[in-house]
């Protein structure tokens, strides 16, 4: 199966001919991508492959040189209320003077729109989301006192209160402990069960077959995209990670290892 023969009504994300360049250096080159509804998808590729840029250009945060993006059939700016975004944890200043609850409530700001203030409803939603990620007792905590895993949970809670249909998460597993990683993946699965689409920039090839049901491999160009057991092959990984000799040797090994694991399970 290939993502190209999916029908439009079943798609949550449609990307066509997406090209992004910084100056004359293409970061993403003519990407086509169709993501069906209700799946958990990983975006993988070597460093500098354009994974974060791809999410950012789908979200309109980076201006593409060419291409068209549709979310649930409409352009992004018409669908903002249906989209949840979790940036990289390191992209914000955790010394900012604010509390955990306050950060989670920011997830409601989009629904509130300009000027309108968050109230009791937003507060309750935020507390509920914090409860879900196991952080309720930290709601009054200053964000500067959180550990890396706790920061990530707060970001996730914030995404939950966005009540989106399509979620984009940039390396949510980056630098979190094993327990938090479990908690996050459980949560992502719950979102999928609820019919949401979750797109995750992911670094750890090892866990791709276990965590995700759909995968997109990119390295500036799209290498492959589709169900993990069809697309996450040795050959595709070689194409995606090839050329980076120093980097590839252990990665390839890793990739081989769990392609094996994948076959064992079948």
């Amino acid at each position, binding site marked *: 199966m290939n993502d190209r023969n999916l029908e439009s009504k079943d798609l949550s994300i449609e990307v066509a001919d997406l090209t992004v360049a910084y100056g004359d250096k293409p970061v993403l080159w003519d990407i086509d991508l169709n993501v069906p509804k209700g799946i958990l998808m990983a975006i993988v590729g070597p460093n500098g492959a354009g994974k974060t840029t791809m999410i950012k250009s789908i979200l*309109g945060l980076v201006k593409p040189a060419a291409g068209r993006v549709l979310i649930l059939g409409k352009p992004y*700016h018409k669908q903002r209320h249906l989209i949840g975004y979790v940036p990289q944890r390191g992209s*914000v200043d955790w010394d900012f*003077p604010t509390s955990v609850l306050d950060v989670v409530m*920011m997830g409601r*700001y989009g629904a*509130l729109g*300009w*000027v309108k203030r968050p109230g009791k409803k937003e507060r309750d939603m935020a507390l509920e989301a914090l409860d879900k990620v196991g952080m309720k007792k930290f709601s009054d905590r200053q964000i500067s006192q959180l550990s890396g895993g706790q920061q990530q949970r707060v970001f996730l809670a914030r995404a939950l209160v966005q009540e989106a249909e399509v979620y984009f998460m940039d390396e949510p597993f980056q630098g979190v402990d094993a327990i938090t990683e479990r908690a996050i993946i459980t949560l992502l699965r719950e979102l999928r069960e609820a019919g949401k689409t979750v797109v995750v920039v992911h670094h750890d090839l090892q866990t791709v077959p276990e965590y995700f049901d759909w995968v997109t491999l990119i390295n500036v160009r799209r290498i492959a995209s589709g169900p993990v057991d069809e697309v996450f092959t040795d050959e595709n990984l070689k194409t995606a990670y090839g050329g980076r000799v120093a980097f590839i040797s252990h990665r390839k090994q890793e990739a081989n290892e769990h392609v094996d694991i994948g076959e064992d399970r079948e």
Partner: protein
Amino acid sequence: MNPAQIEIQLIAIVVAVACALPGVFLVLRRMALMSDAISHAILLGIVLAFFVVKDLASPLLVIAAALTGVLTVSLVELLNKTKLVKEDAAIGLVFPVLFSMGVILISRFAGDVHLDTDAVLLGELAFAPFNRFEPFGYDIGPITLYVMAGILLLNLLFIIIFYKELKVATFDPGLAASIGLSPAIIHYALMSLVSVTAVGAFDAVGSILVVALMIAPPAAAYLMTNDLKWMIIISAVIGILSAVTGYWCAHIFDVSIAGSMATMTGVFFLLSFFLAPKRGMLSIWQRRSRQKWEFAIKMLVVHLSHHENLPEAKDESRIDHLQRHFEWNKDFAERVVRRAEKSESIITVGDIMELTDKGRQLAGESVVK
């Protein structure tokens, strides 16, 4: 106090608070230097507008200055985007160009008006009450007071109305953009406010001291609280305190009021730097010292419990043994023992130490952790 003194202090207070409000967001956005750039570059806007309207009190000057401020920010960003120049260098390149153009224009074409470089750099608060606001012939106070009160109100309204937007655009611009609360709009609105505030305050305190009033109170408040609302309030209070104490210092020592006010913002910053609860230097030192002793006591009780009831216990529990075991010097070892005794973790019999129940419990907890 005579009326002029009261008026000067009122102006000083209003200027200080008006500067502190947008300053909070400059500090949080790590854009403190931008206030320096803007406060200088707006001179060009003021001079150009003055050539057009030939009136120093015209509101057009404020608008022109605000536009120059935004121009400064845009030029810095443009230069920075080329990636040939880093942001701090870009700031250092842009504003001196605009500022020097202003200075040259003044010296060449405006030698005979009250727009000299001294006034630009330092301002003169003492002269502010001479310019009266007299609608329909009634004198209702100095013009500067009304201009600054208007700017203060503008800043206050902006922060109150767009509080949520300012917060999210400052903390997480990526999220703000993705939910449609454009951080670019907030950014340029804030920069315009900084420019308007700078041009208003400029007349009273000059361009250099505007920077002190914008940055020092928020930087001090940042150390004192973990809540954005309180940071804004404390910044404003420090601004007021700096204005009043600065005025009276200037009065007593017969020096420049603006200079004295700026000095006081520095004094308040230093006070906060050393004395702020939790984040101040004093509290950091105290915490470090406490941790040092607590850890030493823990090491001691763990050591004692390790050898307790064993044949070597007598040797291991002697005070003079500690120096060998921990590489503590004699003095430090004795002080640790005193403190451990005081906290009832150990008792000493002669020079032999014995664990108390409390000590045993502490040792257990320390090892488990």
